[in-house]
């Protein structure tokens, strides 16, 4: 029910108004009283005047509006030009560089121990290496094996992130590093390229029992990764061992597990080539049978994958046949375009390849060519 809906009679209206006014003034008085009590309590408790400041303090903390100075009146970069004396080395260091300098000077902090370890490692290597190599900050990453240059570039970029002042760049000098195994062969430093020519037979053997050892085509260095490194196959490892230690090389621990190499990704087509080489040569001398038969076992499964290069390989191996040159024109042109047999891993298998070249595996094309020639 609203007042607008209910018209009131005259006298009652005024009376009602009066009543209403009375009630209203009572309410107002209650409000005033409430306020008075509040103020009185604040005064007696001492917090009534807390929100006010006197004029003197107001002047003191006035907002400053001068150029070159912030609103509190402080100068922004007054500490920039100041120098501090390092308590350790007694040098005068600029203020903004003081904290990082202390970190290195005192040997505390995250970066300093890392850098110190790197320096130690590279110093060990440098003392044994022939070339004069700069310090490299490569121990940031866990990449042991050598690499393709793109890996070196990636390391360069990683390195520059960690240390802002680093202006020296890492140069991956392929082939210039002729260092032997460092005192601790398990210390990892990607520059510690192990050149197999530098090692004695005992060292080679001990090295090969623990590490991959596959010789890289680029650098002639042995891979320092573990025995199960995914970049090289067991065949390569075995080939290296045969090559370095002679035919009586101990069989790799994983030679039995056929399934393992299957799971490896083979980025290098040349690795496949080498496997195919094995597979194309059934007549291998008995001394190599231990290694090669093991390899043919699991390379057989790979046979269906690559059929294309097979004939060319077979033709390559059968260079002695005169009919080949005449017949199978397309095939021979393929041969001529490929003067060399698939390069690097084969260098490992050198003794075996010589034998391969002497054997002839009659392929379909060879036979067809021979037949054409006769006709």
């Amino acid at each position, binding site marked *: *029910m*609203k*007042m*607008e809906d*209910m018209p009131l009679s005259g006298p009652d209206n005024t*009376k*009602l*108004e*009066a*009543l*209403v*006014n*009375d*009630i*209203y*003034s009572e*309410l*107002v*008085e*209650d*409000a*005033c*009283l*409430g*306020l*008075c*009590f509040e*103020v*009185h309590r604040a*005064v007696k408790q001492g917090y*009534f*005047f807390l929100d006010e400041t006197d004029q003197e303090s107001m002047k003191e903390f006035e907002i400053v509006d001068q150029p070159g100075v912030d609103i509190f009146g402080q100068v922004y970069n007054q500490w920039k030009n100041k120098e501090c004396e390092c308590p350790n080395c007694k040098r005068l260091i600029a203020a903004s560089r003081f904290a990082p300098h202390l970190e290195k000077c005192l040997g505390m902090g995250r970066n300093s121990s890392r850098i110190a370890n790197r320096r130690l490692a590279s110093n060990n290597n440098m003392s044994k290496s022939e070339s004069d190599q700069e310090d490299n900050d490569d121990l940031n990453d866990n990449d042991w094996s050598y690499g393709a240059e793109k890996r070196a570039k990636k390391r360069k970029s990683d390195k520059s992130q960690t240390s802002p002042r680093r202006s020296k760049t890492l140069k991956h000098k392929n082939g210039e590093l002729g260092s032997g195994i460092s005192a601790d062969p398990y210390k990892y430093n990607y520059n510690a390229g192990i050149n197999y020519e530098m090692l004695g037979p005992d060292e080679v053997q001990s090295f090969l029992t623990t590490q991959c050892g596959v010789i890289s085509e680029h650098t002639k260095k042995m891979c320092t990764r573990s025995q199960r490194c995914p970049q090289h196959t067991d065949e390569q490892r075995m080939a290296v061992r045969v090559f370095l230690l002679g035919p009586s090389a101990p069989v790799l621990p994983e030679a039995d597990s056929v399934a393992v190499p299957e799971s490896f990704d083979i980025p290098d087509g040349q690795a496949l080539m080498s496997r195919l080489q094995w597979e194309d040569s059934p007549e291998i001398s008995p001394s190599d049978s231990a290694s090669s038969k093991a390899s043919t076992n699991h390379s057989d499964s790979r046979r269906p994958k690559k059929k294309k290069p097979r004939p060319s390989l077979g033709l390559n191996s059968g260079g002695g046949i005169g009919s080949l040159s005449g017949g199978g024109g397309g095939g021979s042109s393929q041969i001529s375009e490929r003067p060399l047999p698939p390069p690097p891993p084969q260098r490992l298998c050198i003794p075996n390849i010589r034998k391969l070249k002497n054997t002839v595996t009659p392929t379909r094309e060879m036979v067809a060519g021979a037949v054409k020639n006769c006709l």
Partner: protein
Amino acid sequence: MSKDYQMKAAINQKLIEMGERERLKELLRAKLVESGWKDQLKAHCKDVIREKGLEHVTVEDLVTEVTPKGRGTARRQQVVGTGQKSSCPCSKTEKINLVVQ
């Protein structure tokens, strides 16, 4: 007149019983704060206190000084604040009508 007096008493009682009085009171307080009446009155209190001296202010002093001013300004506030037919800033009269009916 006693009749009016009785009526007033009855209204008051009814209001209290319904809880309306409390509600009206809170409403009034909110409105007064909103309009700035409370801060004005507080400033007046400060003057009185400074006048009388901080240590010796009593409640009675404050009340006698402050209340008439408060009442007067509240009345002025209500005239300013309305747009309604009644002279009250809130819909008090309708409530009272309710009670009366």
